């Protein structure tokens, strides 16, 4: 966020001394009430995910306390150890509240982790492509074109079939799927910024290529990256859930939200709705909040829409 503000700072300092860019950005952002609600929801969800071991009533990974005798209890029923399962229990006897908090942790971790790694890789390739131009540019962009012409879900599916299950493997698959979006976005912005005078003057000063690319070009290309990044993280979380539902991605021992929903799907026809419904709502709230914030950021950070 700070980079975006710096970005705006450089443009506005001259004629708007009273209003600091940060305040301006905040007041612009806060004009949309839904986006503010979304932002605080994400904050709350992230807190819950980080604090999972302290908040969750039981430890869903601890096989000593999880008992099959507790399996598929309806919401509100008491478990063997006396604690009430407010949202019921799943097929393995895990308390849904605890399982969801831990699942959220995995879903968010995988989504944000893969998003950040993909962003790093995408930025490097995209900047290089835009700055070098010529052959390197056309080769990179050809690769990006070909990859983006295939749907993300299939590329990730093939990768996970090959790699197997696990957190690391899911992150690898999601990174491979996402980097191309970042690369294409930053290349587009960088191509425009490259022709600006400050780059020319940096070249005239004889600064090294790396310095120009990362210290001069990159900070001025970050605003669109923040928007794409937010949307991509929501997309990654949704994709991970879908892959886990299909039986790839996260293993049964470390269920993400998608895996929990998938587990509940077996029991849906017998009316045991809670195993699928509640993790789904948690997933939905997370993704919608991120998208609402992303939507607003796109409007606020877009210079063409600024008053």
């Amino acid at each position, binding site marked *: 966020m700070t980079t975006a503000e710096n970005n705006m700072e450089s443009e506005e300092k001259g004629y708007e001394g009273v209003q600091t860019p940060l305040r301006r950005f905040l007041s612009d952002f806060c004009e949309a009430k839904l986006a503010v609600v979304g932002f605080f929801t994400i904050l709350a969800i992230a807190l819950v995910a980080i604090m999972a071991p302290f908040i969750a009533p039981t430890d869903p990974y601890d096989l000593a306390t999880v008992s099959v005798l507790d399996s598929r209890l309806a919401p509100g029923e008491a478990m063997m150890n006396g604690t009430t399962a407010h949202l019921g229990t799943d097929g393995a006897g895990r308390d849904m509240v605890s399982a969801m908090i831990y699942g959220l942790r995995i879903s968010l971790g995988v989504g944000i982790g893969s998003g950040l790694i993909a962003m790093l890789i995408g930025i490097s390739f995209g900047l290089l492509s835009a700055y070098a131009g010529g052959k390197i540019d056309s080769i990179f962009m050809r690769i990006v074109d070909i990859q983006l012409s*295939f749907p993300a879900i299939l590329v990730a599916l093939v990768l996970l079939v090959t790699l197997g299950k696990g957190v690391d493997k899911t992150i690898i698959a999601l990174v491979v799927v996402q980097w191309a979006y970042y690369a294409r976005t930053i290349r587009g912005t960088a191509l425009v910024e490259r022709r600006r005078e400050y780059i020319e003057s940096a070249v005239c000063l004889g600064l090294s290529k790396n310095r120009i690319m990362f210290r001069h070009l990159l900070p001025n290309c970050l605003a669109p990256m923040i928007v794409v990044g937010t949307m991509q993280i929501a997309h990654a979380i949704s994709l991970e859930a879908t892959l886990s539902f299909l039986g790839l991605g996260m293993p049964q021992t470390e269920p993400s939200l998608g895996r929990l929903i998938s587990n509940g799907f077996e029991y849906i026809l017998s009316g045991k*709705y809670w195993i699928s419904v509640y993790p789904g709502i948690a997933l939905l709230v997370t993704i919608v909040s991120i998208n609402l914030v992303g939507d607003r950021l796109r409007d606020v950070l877009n210079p063409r829409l600024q008053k």
Partner: protein
Amino acid sequence: MSVFIIRRLMQSALVVVIMSFIVFSGVFLVGDPVEILVSDDADQEEREMMIKSMGLDKPFLVQYGIFISKAIRGDLGDSFVFQEPALLLILDRMPATMELAVVALLIAIVFGIPLGVWAGLKPESLASKSIMTGSILGFSLPTFWVGIMMILLFAVVLGWLPSTGRGDVQIILGMPISVFSWDGFSHVLMPAVNLALFKLSMVIRLARAGTREVMHQDYIKFARAKGLKEQRIILVHVLKNILIPVVTVLGLEFGGLVAFSVVTETVFAWPGMGKLLIDSIGLLDRPIIVAYLMIIVFLFVLINLLVDICYSILDPRVRLQDIKS
């Protein structure tokens, strides 16, 4: 023109070859087919015979060469599980997937365009705002969860629609189709709506953005000045102009629908090729996985090629630029 088409054809062929190599080497690492095919009590000699007869003792590149030379002749190997040609098994399931995708596409167009135009004409009204919030939901909702919720509501709680399978099929033009009977239609409805949701939100957004742009154009003002009825302006002048981007995007996205039906078919146990793929992944049935992916690669390359050619016909600049570079 023909130079352009030939260049694009060669590029497409290259992509298919590269992808076939990636797919083959990726799936090559999956599972041990010998474990699946040979019964547990087979002795070492029987195992080796099996390995030899399947050509698994040869080096990787030789196996790839055999795969390619067979693939060109339309033989993508036999399924380990069904003992039938993988290509035939998939082609057998293809009409079901295509039917689902086409119905979903129709739903997205028929509902998406009017809703989007409405939201574009009256951007401040409550109805438009609900439509747009709805479209954000449509983007955000994970397809498979919506599917499960639809089953819970319409099949379990209300009992209106069947939750799995394809229902009655009729043979029309040599293909089994289920939309034209009531039983079949009731089976198609839920999966098709489920698959359509994402594209529906996209069409709404495209149509809205298009309408808002077009309404400020001079020809709309001119049509108003001529005293045309509002109805005619919207149905003829606006609609014609917003259809171009919508049709382009939907053409490109049809492949995406087919690919994403993997998820919907799994939720609704729809007997299409996506369900076959997921089942085969579970059973480690390599030839079917490879054959499915090759068919999808082929389909996508074909769609992209057709879109490129259509563009070059509509906009000669694309063609000239390509020849110059």
